[in-house]
């Protein structure tokens, strides 16, 4: 579904991603871990199409299409969804209006009829139940004054509404209390199928108890330096990143 080959990207002349290779197939869940500043969010942003990042080398295909060639909105319409690490507050834009615009533009691109107000509301109610999000939140401006956890939950709610094929969750677990973590994970698990794939960026092994990954990758200094299965996450939880850093850094100096 997603194939990343030798991806290099920089911002303001600083190279952040330095040769990422990753294959994600339909039905799979990949976890990406790694120390702060290693480039996890950068990778997520580049995949979603953030223009500030310049891709200097490499290629990314999504369902056979050149992903890097598409505008951010077209990537979303093709089925890429990024749950932001820091969702933006947008005062004055009503959550409902925003979602309806988004859902209908995505539907239009996919050749589906737009949803009328009634159908949209029905869909919204159904998905709200799934992620147990309060109606009151959605009657406010988009993310405005939401708590950290509420913002994260809203991301998953949007994901449920847009029905993506590839979801990238950037630290969606950070800032969630235990109940919210369970609810959000439930949501993710219910939305997954053999036609969809998920990339979860996380620092915590505990999330992976809920969303069980098929593969775990460690990103460090802009490269995937280690890949394994969920046991790798446990090992990292126990030992931290030092041993990996040492391994990589010693190789680099040779």
């Amino acid at each position, binding site marked *: 579904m997603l194939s990343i080959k030798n991806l290099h990207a920089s911002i303001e002349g600083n190279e952040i991603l330095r040769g990422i290779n990753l294959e994600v197939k339909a039905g799979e869940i990949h976890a990406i871990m790694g120390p702060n500043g290693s480039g996890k969010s950068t990778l997520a942003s580049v995949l979603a199409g953030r223009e500030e990042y310049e891709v200097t080398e490499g290629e990314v295909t999504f369902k056979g299409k050149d992903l890097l060639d598409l505008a951010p909105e077209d990537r979303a319409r093709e089925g890429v969804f990024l749950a932001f690490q820091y969702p933006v507050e947008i005062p004055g834009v009503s959550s409902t209006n*925003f979602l309806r615009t988004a859902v209908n533009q995505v539907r239009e691109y996919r050749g589906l009829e737009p949803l009328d107000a009634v159908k949209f509301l029905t869909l919204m109610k159904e998905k709200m139940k799934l992620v147990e999000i309060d109606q009151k939140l959605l009657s406010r401006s988009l993310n405005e004054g939401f708590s950290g956890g509420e913002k994260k939950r809203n991301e998953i709610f949007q994901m449920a509404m847009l029905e993506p094929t590839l979801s990238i969750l950037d630290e969606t677990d950070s800032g969630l209390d235990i109940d919210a973590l369970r609810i959000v994970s439930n949501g993710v698990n219910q939305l997954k199928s053999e036609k969809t794939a998920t990339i979860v960026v996380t620092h915590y092994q505990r999330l992976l108890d809920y969303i069980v990954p098929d593969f775990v990758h460690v990103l460090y200094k802009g490269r995937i330096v280690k890949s394994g299965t969920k046991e790798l996450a446990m090992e990292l939880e126990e030992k931290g990143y030092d041993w990996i850093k040492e391994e990589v850094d010693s190789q680099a100096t040779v």
Partner: protein
Amino acid sequence: MSTLTKQDSFSSLIEAAPKNFESVRTLAKVSYLAQGLPAVKAEEYKFTNISKKLEQKITDFSPALPFAVTAEHVKSAVYEGFDGDILVFANGNFLPELSAKIEGIEVSLLSEKSELALGSIAKPGKDAFAALNQATFQDGIFISVPKKAQVEKPILLLSFDQANGGQLIQPRVWIEVGDLSEVTFIDQSISLGESSYFVNEVVEVKGGVSSHVHYYRIQNEGKNVIEVSTIEADIQKDSTFNSVNISLSGDMVRNNLNLNLVGSNSEGNMYGIYLLNGKTHVDNHTNVDHTIPHAESNELYKGILADQSRGVFNGKIFVRQDAQKTNAFQQNNNILLSEDATVNTKPQLEIWADDVKCSHGCTVGQLDEEALFYLQARGIDKLQAKGLLLHAFAGEVLEKIKTESFREYCDSLIQERLGSKF
């Protein structure tokens, strides 16, 4: 007296001024001649060279004549959903036969009210154009709302302007609102034709004690209209005056809005949007004068500027020594959509009292890229995402319009301009 006989484009207009309101006109004439048209370096008109604009665009410095407006004109011009009473004007001249008779409210031509103290609120000494209007206006309208009147439906002041010879239109409005009354005015002009002409409007509002006046104004006239307006109100004890001004079009527009808080516990609110494109130039000069203790003023103007448009904001807050316990807030925010658009914004605070709460701020920026990306990442195309954000930006001012139908009308014009419906 030689300095008082200075010749300029308006000299013959002044010579030919009507003979009524003699003392009022003489006073204004002296004041006009003393001030003259603003010179290039004039501080108050530093960014808005209206004198030059007039010289370039106006060929016939004589009053535009009233013309025949039909009931059909009126019907087709009134915005959808309007529910209220309409007073109709042609080139600034009130047309009683086409206008509503509003129950309990006195409406007449100014010429029928020759004892009025015109210029006692919008004093001619403050501004040359206010003086020019007072010296030379042809006729105007007098509106009086009695005491204890809750006028529920808005009154639409609907002007049709057609000055094909590039002439002058000088509306003059005097509004009195009795104690304990509330009334809403909507001020709208329609250009018939695309030619240049000059509108120089003066509106004076004399509010009673515990009165509440809402004055909404939309400027969406022809692209070639040059306009100066002066709206000035005295706000008495326990009273409010709410002004919302929406500017969408014109060649060069200068709005002078002056609120005088003269009674305690009074409130003056000034809100505005200027959404400009092409080469439109809009200058909002506001002045709130806190003369007494315990009064409040709130101000929020927002600008969205595309193409080579230009916005000017100058917000004066004057707090006199006696005006303790004043609350005065002012904010001006601008978004530039093009590299060729410019904004000059200047808060001007003069505070002589020591126990006051004043705040002011201004910003000039671009659209929030992060917010834009967030919306795009959800599948919303860039143009529409921009529209959503700009609409939200303007929304904070729009929501100050309490007349729902008018708010929706302005909203639809703004959405249309921003290129999408939400």
